[in-house]
């Protein structure tokens, strides 16, 4: 598993870690029942605190991506990949809708919101 964390990002480390594990699962790098590295092992490898890794594993478990068997370790759950992709899409939609609602209450016009979105997309995806 190739995980790269950005220490200077505003996104908390555990969220970055969750995202990358999810990506791995969705891409099919991990299969069902594959063991994830132990909390301390991954923490040593990534040079982040074990509690950060544990937090990421706990959240992943809540979202149904992994299962932790006490004393044995953490394993990739029987996830339906389609469903996982769908779930992520829904999460993104929720956050965007939140932002759009806030834009509306702030009195921004439809075009202004679109403009903001364009700028952000350009920043993020590059100009293509």
């Amino acid at each position, binding site marked *: 598993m190739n995980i790269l964390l950005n220490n200077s990002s*505003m996104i908390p480390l555990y969220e970055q870690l969750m995202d990358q594990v999810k990506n791995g699962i969705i891409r099919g790098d991990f299969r069902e029942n594959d063991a994830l590295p132990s909390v301390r092992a991954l*923490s040593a490898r990534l040079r982040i*605190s074990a*509690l950060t890794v544990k937090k990421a594993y706990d959240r992943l478990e809540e979202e149904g991506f992994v299962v932790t068997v006490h004393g044995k370790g953490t394993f990739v759950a029987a996830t339906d990949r389609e469903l996982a992709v769908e779930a992520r899409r829904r999460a993104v939609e929720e956050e965007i809708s939140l932002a759009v609602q806030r834009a509306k209450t702030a009195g921004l016009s439809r075009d202004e919101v679109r403009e903001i979105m364009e700028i952000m997309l350009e920043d993020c995806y590059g100009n293509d």
Partner: protein
Amino acid sequence: MVTIEGLKKQYGAFALDVSLEIPAGRITGLVGKNGAGKSTVIKALLGLIRPDGGKVTVFGKEAASLRAADRLKIGTALSNSGFSAYLKLEEVVRILAKFYPDFNETAFRRACEEMGLPFGKQLQHYSTGMKAKLRVLTALCHGAKLLVMDEPTTGLDVEARGEVLDSIRRYAAEHEDCSMLITSHIASDLEGLCDDLYLIHEGKILLHEDTDVLLSEYGLLRVDAETYARLDPRYLLSRRPEGNGYLCFTDQKRYYAENYPGILIEKGGIDDLILMMTSAEGRTLQ
């Protein structure tokens, strides 16, 4: 694993008053400037000094009544003390083998070789860095359940610091249930290692927080005087005048990021934390 409740110790004008807890399987950092009281906490935890008040328990036992059998389960690296400087590493190996039934000689020798510690040289001829490495390796050599390390990286250059920290991390990964207490005044060393951090200053604990919360929620706001005037002060922990504005320390950097678009926010490293929370000007908001 370790509980310290209202530990008090007086040395002249210096008064220590500390409570902290290290649950099983936790790596806890104790950060603070030199002379803040870190070593005193460590000495009390190891039963080397008698507290004037409060209670220190290790493995559920009062620290003062720790026996040799309990100490077998503790690995210690102290900043200013170790084996006699007249001994050679080869002799230290023999002595450790007599002290610890679980001493892993092969692993210890290999680790010493990897770190470039010569076996035939008296410890008094070791460099500062070599001594520090040996102290850490000694703490890690016998499968301890509790590691207590006072300033394990002091006096090391960047590369050696990395090596030492990696060996501690490797130990943690191989001993999932072991707990650690690590002190440092170069706190960035502890960012990638400790689960939680206590900040100690002038004998008192100023702050206790999980490391990842510290890294993700705490931050530095760099603002001019005008922006500062309209800044919501609720989540500011301290501020310091800087140029024609202020440097402010917050535990809710996202709140300011969302509500003051364009505000300059820096990620709060743990060294910033020490600086902002302990300097005289920095504490004006407390």
